[in-house]
């Protein structure tokens, strides 16, 4: 595995675990509290913040474990990255229609924010899965 193949797993872990914890928490809250009364904002900001910290630490850890000079992306890393991000762009563009429609129909802001964050987190994980498939199976 190249440095870039490994370091993107740090990103997947950061995005997936933090979002999963957040949505699990939100699910339990929704069980006994009306959506309008849930104060999700602090939790969401913490989720994004912690995810960034885990990502940075994970990348640093992988970089530390990589022999010096081997962390330069090669042609394959570059192509996988471009193809993966292009695919993520299509997925996110399609998913973003959800919160846009919610905003158009005046849905409560709670749902707009959380559906948008769900789309964001899903696309992040999707991008990493797509890239690892590209790494393994080729184009």
């Amino acid at each position, binding site marked *: 595995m190249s440095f870039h193949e490994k370091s993107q797993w740090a990103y997947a872990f950061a995005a997936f675990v933090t979002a999963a914890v957040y949505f699990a928490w939100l699910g339990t809250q929704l069980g006994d509290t009306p959506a309008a009364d849930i104060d999700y904002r602090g939790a969401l900001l913490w989720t994004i913040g912690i995810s960034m910290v885990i990502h940075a630490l994970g990348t640093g850890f992988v970089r530390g474990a990589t022999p010096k000079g081997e962390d330069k992306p090669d042609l394959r890393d570059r192509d996988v990255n*471009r*193809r993966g*991000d*292009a695919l993520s762009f299509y997925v996110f563009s399609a998913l973003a229609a959800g*919160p846009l429609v919610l*905003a158009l129909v005046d*849905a409560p*802001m709670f749902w707009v924010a959380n559906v948008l964050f769900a789309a*964001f987190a899903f696309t992040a994980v999707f991008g990493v899965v797509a890239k690892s498939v590209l790494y393994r199976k080729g184009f």
Partner: protein
Amino acid sequence: MTMEQRSVWVQVFVYPIALLVYLAVVGARASAAPVSEISWVVPMIWTIGVMIIAIILGTIATAIAAAAGAEIRGEKAEFEDGDIRDQEIERYGDYRARHFTALGALAVIVLAMAHVDHFWIATSMFVTGTIAAEYGCIIRIRAYRQGL
């Protein structure tokens, strides 16, 4: 010029024009009344619909115009099929646009958390989406000229 390249050239004009028309229409309404009371949903749906149709019709029209021009000059009209280069350039443009939408989405999440009016949420999503698409088109036009 391939159809893909033609379509990029059409899009690069359609996006900013559509965006400016939408912003002018809702801007005029917003200056007369608070945003929570103006009607912006219908203009946005119209803008998105007209944008899609304009891109399709524009691509067809420029292809016909190019063919007609070639006939007038006494040359044979050629329709190039898209190839691997078009595909690579498209992916490259979309890859660059991806970062734009990711940042835009975070900004919109923050706006939604601030519980601003729905108008601002939908408009900022529309604006970042359109700008990302425009940015991708500019990157693609540059890639057609200068390579990847």
